[in-house]
């Protein structure tokens, strides 16, 4: 059995979970077994994970699991993994998954690889690849233990809804008391969080000041994209900290990354160079970012960015 823990921040199953189940189903197919999804806490419609390939959805709808605690979750996931005879346990490489993967590996005496972005090969040993050195190289790992634990990098695999919803079932599992008390949680509503975003519009110091961000927000709104920024912009408080992408900020791998007025320092590239398509707008033709870009525009971003928004409007009207 392949067991996938479906993340459900704020009681919502999100794209990252659908990707993880899609991935789990493909791993299960390759191994000649089935995929089960595990949902923890109050979540509506856990059975929908059947659409992404889960033959079975286990939903532990217990209020003690509404808040994430790595110690409690590890105990519960490991218990379920043993009960279903999981050979592979998959989590998302999310804030929860990153806290869990090391713990689960120890608890299950399993080999683990964190942040995988490709399907494993299972003939002649279980091997799987991930990006290392902040995207400057790819390493292939071999896991030799009977049980394996993987965390899946977001946007690594397209979601496939090939199955149909199933009826979620429960399971007898001991839930230990949590030692961690959640006091407060603040999240931004209404936008796709950066790690999940497929389209990202980002801007840097070339914007000259926070009052000029309207053109970036307009382009993002037209695209349905999430906004991001470079480190100096977050450090000076022009934009909120959670928008900062790069090595010290959030690492992302969207389908499209549009960068306006960002020179492309190596620390910035480390957080965005796994994006599928990169568009760079900069008035300096020597900006290092152009070397990492797919499409480059040398020009004044205050003219170019609104022009892209206009062209998108025209394109949408015509299609």
């Amino acid at each position, binding site marked *: 059995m392949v067991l996938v823990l479906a993340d459900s921040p704020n009681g919502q199953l999100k794209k990252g979970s659908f990707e993880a189940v899609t991935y789990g189903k493909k791993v299960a197919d390759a191994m000649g077994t089935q995929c089960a999804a595990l949902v923890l806490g109050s979540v509506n419609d856990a059975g929908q994970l059947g659409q992404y390939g889960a033959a079975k959805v286990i939903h532990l709808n217990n209020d003690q699991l509404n808040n994430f605690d790595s110690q409690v979750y590890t105990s519960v996931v490991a218990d379920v993994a043993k009960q279903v005879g999981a050979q592979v346990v998959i989590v998302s490489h999310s804030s929860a998954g990153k806290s869990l993967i090391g713990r689960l590996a120890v608890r299950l005496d399993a080999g683990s690889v964190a942040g995988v972005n490709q399907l494993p090969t299972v003939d002649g040993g279980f091997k799987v690849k991930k990006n290392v050195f902040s995207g400057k190289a*790819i390493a292939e790992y071999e896991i030799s233990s009977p049980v394996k634990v993987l965390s899946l990098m977001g946007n690594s695999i397209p979601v496939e809804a090939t199955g149909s919803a199933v009826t979620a079932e429960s399971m007898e599992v001991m839930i230990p008391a949590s030692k961690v008390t959640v006091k407060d949680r603040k999240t931004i509503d209404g936008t796709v969080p950066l790690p999940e975003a497929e389209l990202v519009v980002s801007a840097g110091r070339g914007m000259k000041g926070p009052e000029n961000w309207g053109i970036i927000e307009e382009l993002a709104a037209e695209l349905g994209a999430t906004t991001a920024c470079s480190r100096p912009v977050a450090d000076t408080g022009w934009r909120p900290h959670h928008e900062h992408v790069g090595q010290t900020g959030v690492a992302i791998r969207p389908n499209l990354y549009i960068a306006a007025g960002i020179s492309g320092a190596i620390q910035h590239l480390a957080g965005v160079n796994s994006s599928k398509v990169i568009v760079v707008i900069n008035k300096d033709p020597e900006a290092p970012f152009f070397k990492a870009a797919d499409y480059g525009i040398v020009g004044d971003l205050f003219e170019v960015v609104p022009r892209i928004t206009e062209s998108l409007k025209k394109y949408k009207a015509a299609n």
Partner: protein
Amino acid sequence: MKILVCVSKTPETTAKISFSGTDFETAGVQFIMNPYDEWYALVRALELKEAHGGSVTIINVGPASNDPIIRKGLAIGADDAVRINAEPKSALTAAKYIAEYAKTGEFDLILTGKETIDYNGSEVGGMLAELLDLPYISYANHLDVNGTTAMVSRDIEGGTEQVEVATPIVVSAAKGMAEQRIPNMRGIMMAKRKPLNVIEPGAASDHANVVSYEMPQGKTAVKMIDPENMDELVRLLHEEAKVI
């Protein structure tokens, strides 16, 4: 308060990465203390010690060639250091060695960086916490301690979460925890006299190892587009790149 800070050695951020066979080519590469361990975990540990008293010990798993990096940690202000004399073959072996040492020390706080900039796994903190049966708060952007109660704020998707937890705990440190400190001359001189204890490792098994490396496919040359003609960009994003 006794604080243990786990520090790793990584290639410097701008280092050129290459491989000879299946080995990482270290010739010509400058190594540094993993920035998240140094800027965030170590500096916050020192700030907490300055506010509450206690001690800060740094621990590294690696060969004697790591000593300059460990000495830098002492120069920034750690009281003493421990080096487990073993190659850190995997996250799990490193975590097992550190846990073995941590069991002897009754530490209130064990800090790591959010991840290393070489293997980007973010696993050692969680492994340590599990091996020591302690709570683990990852990606912390703020940490305060009052008696035996820790108040931690951590990064979650699109926001932050504040939690309270009794020490001892393991915390991984992200941006916001502290600001980088540059060692001063006095610190550098004092670091030479601070204890750096070398411990021979016990046995530690692991289950996951790198078998090969490859370089990412090179980007095709950038396609430059006339800044007056953004219809062309939209067309290419739709028809060629197929991302919109």
